[in-house]
């Protein structure tokens, strides 16, 4: 069908909204509450446009096109309405852009500029609320909230957690955790999907920059940093690079210039995780242990199952997540190796994740000292690089330190949903058959679908596997497990949709397109790696020979495995 958009005739499909057509035609319409792939709520009214004979203005995000419709997206009436709406938002918003962590990257601030808001046209009462800093991962500043509802929708509809929701009504409306308690006392899984969907500074990660700077500046401390697989494909965005640009070498260089004593790669321990996990899986299959086995690298997911399916904790792999393994090794194997007192060592993890901040504080992860002392997100690292005056793209490419810096393509793909599964299958195949598989690519478990399943033939054994990302998608599989009807042997679960590339600590704003590009780069790193199977990692092999002994052996268990806690739903 044809519609007229600002006087130009253009083509449209039945069922599309005005917004769909406008975006395709290159006509920008501002939105705040809109989320692609979600049903429209029509709450922010910023996308209002004028439709001939429609009476009042209509929301482009929710209004379907019809043949011959005449739409004006840029009339004085529309501009005035949008500007007024922005002014109304500003009137109930703390005017502290100067100090706000989202300044320069804030959707409201951007709109204020675009629509030329230069004065306070409306003044009056403002919403007052206390900042909630009790969670180890996420900070909430309800005064900055513009009630677009994106966090609520992602928490309920994508993650099925429902830690937060709208409360009260009218001008008193707010987004708050259940019973208006603080976030750490409700079953929030700290995944940070609310943070990456927040258009303003109402939801942010809890910053750990200060303790990290303090550690760096403390001459007594030996400060070691590790970088997660998904950070290197996203950090570049913070400095203006195209989404998906791989910046591994520059990241290492930047970390050295920030003053870290050693820079290691979490991909190393990702390889290690695979060795342990593949052995654990084969052990369970051989000894008729509890299956399906569930992966345990995603701390948001681990917290989810602890809260909502504690009866299934036996299915969860006992492997620590890679950065915790790395931390444990750094404070034992490596500290011993270089002769540094582990009490002096300070381990920092740069993660695409907010839940890792909470994970690092779990008491069972560490012995005398915590495995990992501080977790900073990709965004926080970018801020540290900026404040240090480092011109990121002028840096040379540098390599990780040895020996916890070597990694294979299998470790790299941990950053994308399905990657852990794929890496584990490569190694499991080797363990079962004694040879590497012909093609190392498992197409059925790649991509951004929420649930991907495959039957993998290894020798004469058919392994039924699934890779799930986004917590909503795991529920039906867990319910099957409860009923004893699950057909699977092995399930990978990532809390965030798309995996770590879309983690709660990644650069903002995150769009589905950016997630796709970051994922592609992850697989590109794998393709270009000289070794693509974890069991081929020579440093890992050496580690077992020198220190750990057997996979799943005694030392490995002590350092690399953990246990879980059943938590109340509330």
């Amino acid at each position, binding site marked *: 069908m044809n519609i007229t958009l600002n006087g130009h005739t253009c083509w449209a499909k039945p069922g599309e909204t005005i917004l769909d057509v406008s975006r395709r035609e290159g006509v920008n319409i501002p939105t705040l509450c809109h989320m692609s792939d979600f049903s429209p709520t029509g709450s922010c009214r910023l996308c209002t446009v004028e439709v001939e004979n429609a009476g009042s203005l209509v929301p482009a995000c929710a209004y379907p096109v019809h043949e011959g419709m005449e739409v004006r997206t840029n009339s004085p009436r529309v501009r005035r309405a949008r500007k007024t709406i922005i002014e109304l938002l500003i009137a109930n918003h703390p005017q502290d852009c100067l100090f706000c962590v989202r300044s320069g990257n804030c959707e409201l601030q951007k709109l204020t500029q675009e629509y030329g808001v230069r004065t306070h046209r409306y003044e009056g009462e403002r919403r007052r609320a206390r900042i909630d800093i009790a969670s180890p991962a996420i900070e909430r500043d309800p005064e900055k909230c513009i009630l677009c509802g994106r966090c609520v929708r992602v928490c*309920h509809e994508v993650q099925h957690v*429902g*830690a*937060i*929701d*709208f*409360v*009260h009504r009218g001008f008193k409306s707010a987004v708050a955790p259940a*019973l208006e308690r603080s976030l750490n006392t409700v079953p929030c899984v700290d995944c940070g999907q609310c943070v990456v969907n927040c258009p303003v500074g109402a939801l942010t990660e809890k910053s750990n920059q200060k303790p990290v700077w303090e550690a760096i500046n403390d001459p007594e401390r030996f400060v070691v940093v590790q970088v997660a697989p998904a950070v290197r494909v996203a950090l570049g965005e913070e400095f203006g690079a195209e989404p998906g640009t791989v910046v591994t070498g520059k990241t290492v260089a930047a970390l050295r210039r920030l003053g870290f004593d050693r820079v290691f790669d979490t991909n190393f321990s990702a390889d290690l995780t695979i060795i342990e996990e593949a052995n654990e899986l084969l052990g369970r299959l051989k000894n008729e242990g509890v299956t399906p086995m569930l992966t345990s690298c995603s701390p948001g997911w681990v917290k989810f199952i602890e809260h909502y399916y504690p009866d299934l904790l036996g299915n969860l792999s006992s492997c620590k997540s890679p950065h915790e393994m790395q931390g444990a090794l750094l404070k034992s194997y490596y500290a011993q190796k270089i002769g540094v007192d582990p009490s002096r060592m300070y381990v920092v993890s740069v993660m695409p994740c907010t839940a890792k901040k909470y994970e690092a504080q779990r008491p069972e992860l560490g012995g005398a000292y915590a495995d990992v002392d501080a977790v900073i997100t990709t965004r926080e690292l970018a801020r540290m690089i900026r404040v240090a005056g480092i011109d990121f793209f002028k840096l040379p490419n540098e390599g990780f330190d040895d020996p916890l810096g070597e990694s294979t393509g299998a470790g790299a793909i941990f950053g994308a949903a399905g990657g852990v599964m794929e890496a584990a299958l490569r190694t499991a195949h080797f363990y079962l058959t004694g040879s590497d598989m012909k093609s190392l690519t498992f197409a059925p478990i790649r991509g951004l679908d929420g649930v991907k399943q495959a039957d993998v033939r290894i020798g004469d054994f058919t392994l039924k596997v699934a890779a799930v990302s986004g917590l909503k998608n795991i529920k039906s599989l867990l319910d099957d497990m409860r009923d004893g009807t699950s057909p699977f042997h092995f399930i990978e679960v990532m809390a965030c949709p798309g995996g770590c590339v879309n983690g709660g600590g990644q650069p903002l704003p995150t769009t589905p397109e950016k997630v796709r590009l970051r994922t592609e780069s992850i697989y590109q790193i794998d393709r270009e790696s000289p070794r693509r199977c974890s069991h081929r990692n020579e440093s890992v092999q050496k580690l077992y020979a020198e220190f750990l002994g057997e996979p799943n052996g005694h030392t490995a268990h002590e350092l690399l495995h953990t246990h879980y806690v059943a938590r109340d739903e509330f």
Partner: protein
Amino acid sequence: MTKQQHMPEIYGKYPKKDASCLIDLLQDVQEQFGYLPDSEMQQVAKHVDIPVSRVYGVATFYNQFRFQPLGKYVIKVCRGTACHVQGSLGILTTLENELGIKAGQTTKDLMFTIETVACIGACSIAPVIAINDEFHGGLTTKSLQKLLRGYQKRSAKDEVTA
């Protein structure tokens, strides 16, 4: 508490995992307890299988639900248009001054709660208030004070006999 024993009756009335019963359930719980205790909201959430945050979000949306116990006498002040033009704001202010609480609050001795309602539909006798569903119409500041004295005496007497 004896109240606890009645609870299965409330929940048994509604099918599990049916979120459309949420408001009915909350109304029943409130009828039982006079307000919505946190623990019951958690119980309701389990029963209909939705997050507690959603239960609380729904409960705080509607005027009917309370989160603290109410006073023995609940005074509803009608703020309908007819009452407004007949001076119900003055009635409310007097009431607030006399009892030393604001609308929506309960006196410390748990005797009186003041609430405002949009319209109780007794426009013919505006301005009107209802004390525990007993209507008192055509009020003036003076007649209200007198009325209140009566209730205060009554509550004092109840105290003595109790």
